[in-house]
């Protein structure tokens, strides 16, 4: 994190459009970063160069603040400069307490730089704090840190605002570059056809040659003359064909290499240095360690490794969580460390590097590590696995449990970590980016987390498959394996079809049915893509597996909102669109459809009786997060002849509501992701759905709940207790009539 880089990044831009105050703010942020880095460094080993750079930073800030007329900032920077000078002269030793005071001053500087213009001359709301910090700074040279004024501990949760980041490069550029590469690649088949043409030409020439010989034997002068003419005319054709092919190949090489470089350059625009996204972390580790009475140093290695900006942004929260874990759980107190024969200063290494086209990030510490036996006990205590299995689990297998939501070894949750939102957050984020995460630990030696991610999210390595003649892609990280099996090896158990794979049952579902695209033609061999995790694994039956490809991702038009089961789109080499599937979403879809009793079987079973006739039946969507309630409602209504489908929560429900034609929606109120009132609000705001009848069924039966539901636009409010009598069915009949429109009550 060199300061040169920060400055060049800030000043390479065209600055003519910024006001003086904007410029001051940018400079203040950059200087604050130099000061923070310098202070953190000086705590470990104070060298003259660092002091010098900090003094210059304070001095420059002072000058800049004077230009924009910010008197309190001038005084503050001046006081800081004094401290650095004193340290240079040796009359002051910067210890941890002194660094605390100075870091507090830097924070204040940052906050003041963001004040509105009117507050500049007097420091606005920070005036009192300025005086406090000034007093603390003044106390430093005399007492040499013996009795520093108590500065309020810097709140860890409030990160200093980042300097204005350059705008993210437009995706349009990548799309166009990808298109250029696609066009260049399309020259290849054309050149192949030229080669084919040349071979045909050669055959024609051979035939001509034979004809010529035959004519010579006959000795007819007229024919001989004509044959000579044909030969003469044909001769240049050979050469020109040859030349055309060579030129075309040259052109194709040039076009491909330029287009490929173009794509690479555009991708590079999306990249930034790993270190650029982590300015807050060393400071956070230091403050946190001090508040816990520990001595910890963060070493960042490979901070100039290039990372996709979008990836880096998403990395920030999980990395900070890992570092908090390391400081809080991993690191021992200095006394404990001394007893274990380790240096008092603990070290956390944050290392980023490229490995095999992937970005590998290691967070390792030399703390106490995790005792696998403690994990084993915790797993057993929480009954996460049967006792017999718990005893047999290996070390790495036990480590996997640390990623479960709510799993924490720490007995008392504190504000730093251990609320049960630790490693599972990291795991979810990494998975959403198509990466993997692994932890390993040697008790007493330390703990290491390794995250492996694709370097960019703009290009995804994917398995392309065909479903009913159209191309779909699954991120390769989400595909467990691909199988090709004869249709006769499919077995059926209680109505579900499955395959025997390595001794376990793999449930088969038809991709066409999951995606509601239609029925595939039966074939003698099934192409099966295995997706999911150990707990929930399915074999997705597709028409054809086309192979692995690198796809340039195009986000779907924002107007679409979230499309169920689809993550994004891309173009294949021949220019045809391909939809990249959202595998977690699909697993949810599959679970939902199976639960609703839908047949997702790939092999042709008996066709659903009279699909056409069923269209006339009234359709009801039941939205509830409780399986029991959902099933009860479904059975009740289905028994009356209604066609019922279910959704697991509000978002799922909203997707279904938009996707199908419904006669009635029955929804719960309390649901994750989107509650019933929210769902109702969306339905009522949609011009096409405004008049769709909606019934609320809820445990809440206080009058105010009822009023709230009806106010949001519900047509009927039913308390859940009222199921057992026919209230639900009566209410449904009142709202939409009997199951078949033909019948009347």
């Amino acid at each position: 994190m060199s300061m040169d880089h920060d400055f060049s990044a800030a000043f390479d831009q065209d600055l003519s459009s910024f006001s003086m105050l904007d410029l001051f703010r940018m400079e203040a942020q950059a200087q604050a970063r130099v000061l923070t880095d310098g202070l953190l460094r000086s705590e470990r080993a104070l060298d003259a160069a660092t002091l010098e750079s900090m003094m210059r930073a304070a001095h420059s800030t002072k000058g800049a603040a004077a230009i924009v007329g910010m008197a309190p900032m001038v005084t503050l920077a001046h006081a800081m400069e004094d401290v650095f000078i004193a340290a240079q002269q040796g009359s002051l030793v910067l210890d941890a307490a002194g660094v605390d005071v100075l870091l507090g001053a830097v924070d204040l500087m940052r906050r003041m730089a963001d004040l509105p213009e009117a507050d500049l001359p007097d420091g606005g709301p920070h005036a009192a704090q300025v005086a406090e910090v000034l007093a603390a700074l003044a106390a430093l040279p005399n007492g040499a840190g013996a009795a520093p004024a108590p500065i309020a501990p810097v709140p860890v949760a409030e990160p200093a605002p980042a300097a204005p980041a350059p705008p993210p490069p437009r995706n349009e550029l990548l799309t166009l570059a990808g298109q250029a590469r696609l066009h260049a690649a399309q020259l290849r088949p054309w050149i192949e056809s030229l080669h084919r043409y040349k071979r045909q030409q050669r055959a024609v020439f051979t035939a001509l040659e034979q004809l010529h010989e035959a004519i010579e034997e006959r000795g007819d002068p007229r024919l001989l003359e004509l044959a000579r003419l044909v030969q003469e005319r044909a001769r240049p054709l050979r050469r020109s064909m040859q030349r055309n092919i060579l030129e075309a190949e040259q052109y194709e090489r040039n076009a491909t290499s330029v287009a490929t470089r173009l794509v690479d350059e555009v991708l590079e625009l999306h990249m930034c240095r790993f270190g650029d996204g982590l300015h807050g972390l060393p400071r956070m580790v230091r403050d946190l360690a001090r508040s816990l009475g520990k001595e910890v140093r963060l070493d960042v290695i490979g901070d100039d490794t290039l990372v996709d900006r979008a990836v880096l942004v998403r990395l920030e929260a999980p990395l900070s969580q890992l570092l908090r874990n390391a400081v809080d759980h991993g690191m021992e107190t200095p006394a404990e460390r001394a007893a274990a024969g380790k240096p008092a200063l603990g070290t956390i290494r944050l290392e980023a590097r490229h490995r095999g086209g992937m970005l590998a990030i290691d967070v390792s510490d030399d703390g106490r590590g995790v005792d696998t036996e403690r994990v084993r006990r915790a797993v057993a205590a929480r009954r996460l696995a049967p006792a017999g299995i718990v005893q047999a689990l290996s070390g790495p297998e036990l480590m996997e449990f640390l990623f479960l939501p709510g799993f924490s070894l720490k007995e008392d949750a504190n504000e730093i970590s251990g609320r049960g939102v630790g490693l599972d957050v990291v795991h979810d984020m990494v998975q959403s980016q198509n990466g993997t995460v692994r932890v390993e630990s040697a008790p007493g030696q330390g703990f290491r987390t390794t995250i492996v991610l694709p370097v960019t999210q703009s290009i995804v390595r994917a398995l392309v498959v065909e479903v009913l003649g159209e191309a779909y892609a699954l991120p390769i990280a989400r595909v467990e394996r691909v199988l090709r099996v004869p249709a006769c090896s499919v077995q059926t158990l209680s109505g579900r079809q499955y395959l025997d794979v390595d001794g376990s049952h793999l449930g088969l579902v038809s991709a066409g049915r999951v995606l509601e695209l239609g029925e595939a033609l039966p074939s003698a061999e099934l192409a099966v893509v295995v997706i999911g995790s150990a707990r929930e694994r399915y074999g997705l039956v597709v028409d054809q597996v086309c192979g692995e490809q690198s796809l340039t991702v195009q986000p779907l038009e924002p107007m679409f909102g979230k499309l169920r089961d689809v993550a994004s789109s891309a173009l294949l080499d021949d220019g045809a669109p391909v939809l990249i599937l959202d595998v977690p979403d699909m697993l949810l879809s599959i679970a939902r459809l199976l639960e609703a009793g839908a047949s997702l079987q790939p092999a042709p079973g008996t066709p659903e009786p009279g699909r056409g006739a069923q269209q006339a039946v009234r359709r009801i969507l039941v939205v509830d997060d409780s399986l029991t309630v959902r099933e009860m409602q479904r059975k009740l209504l289905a028994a009356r002849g209604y066609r019922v489908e279910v959704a697991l929560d509000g978002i799922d429900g909203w997707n279904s509501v938009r996707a199908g034609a419904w006669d009635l929606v029955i929804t719960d109120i309390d649901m994750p992701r989107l509650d019933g009132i929210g769902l109702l609000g969306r339905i009522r705001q949609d011009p096409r759905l405004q008049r769709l009848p909606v019934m609320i069924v809820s445990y809440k039966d206080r009058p105010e709940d009822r009023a709230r539901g009806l106010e949001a636009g519900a047509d009927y409010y039913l308390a859940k207790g009222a199921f057992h009598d026919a209230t639900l069915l009566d209410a449904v009949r009142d709202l939409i009539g009997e199951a078949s429109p033909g019948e009347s009550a």
Partner: protein
Amino acid sequence: MIIDDCWRRIGVTGDRSCPELERHIHCRNCAVYADAAQRNLQRPVEPAYRETWARELSRPEPPPAPTDAAAMVFRIGAEWLAVPVALAATVAPPAPIHRLPHRSGGALLGVVNVGGRVLPAVSLAALLGIDTAGVPAPMGRHAFERLLVLELQGQRIAVPVAEMHGILRYAGAAVRPPAATLGHIGSRLLAGVIADSAIEAGLLDGALLEGELAGLLR
């Protein structure tokens, strides 16, 4: 001056008994025919005829009808329709449309590649209830299917059309209310009917179309 129209008597339009026919095959190759044509063109013009034309040509030309708006005209099924030119972003050759999971069957056809961008494709025929089945190909000209790309609030949407006509300039005041001829298609989206000498088209209301398409995609 009398011209002997021998080609009508004994030539190709007559009984074809002219001996010259064997050599010339058709009267237009014969010198007699060419000579008659020359003489016809050099015939003196009567004064009355000249005066009629002089009067006609001396009349000032009527000013062209003022036009203050333009629309892009295209055909869907048998219906000629138009959208304000501001909404028409570009026209692209037809391309295969990829269906969307869970969203089939409506006016939203899927997504399509237009110049490297994956855009939503919408069937105006389904949206407006126009029957495209069994519409015969137009006589006397080639009709090329196209993708008309509409731009609505920065969002591009591709619409397959049977044929493009081009830009039609019209006067805002001359827009007629939707006529009975167009009454059977989803007339709530129609702002009126515009026409020039060559064509008559139903003008779609930009704002209503925008709302309808946005609702369809969500």
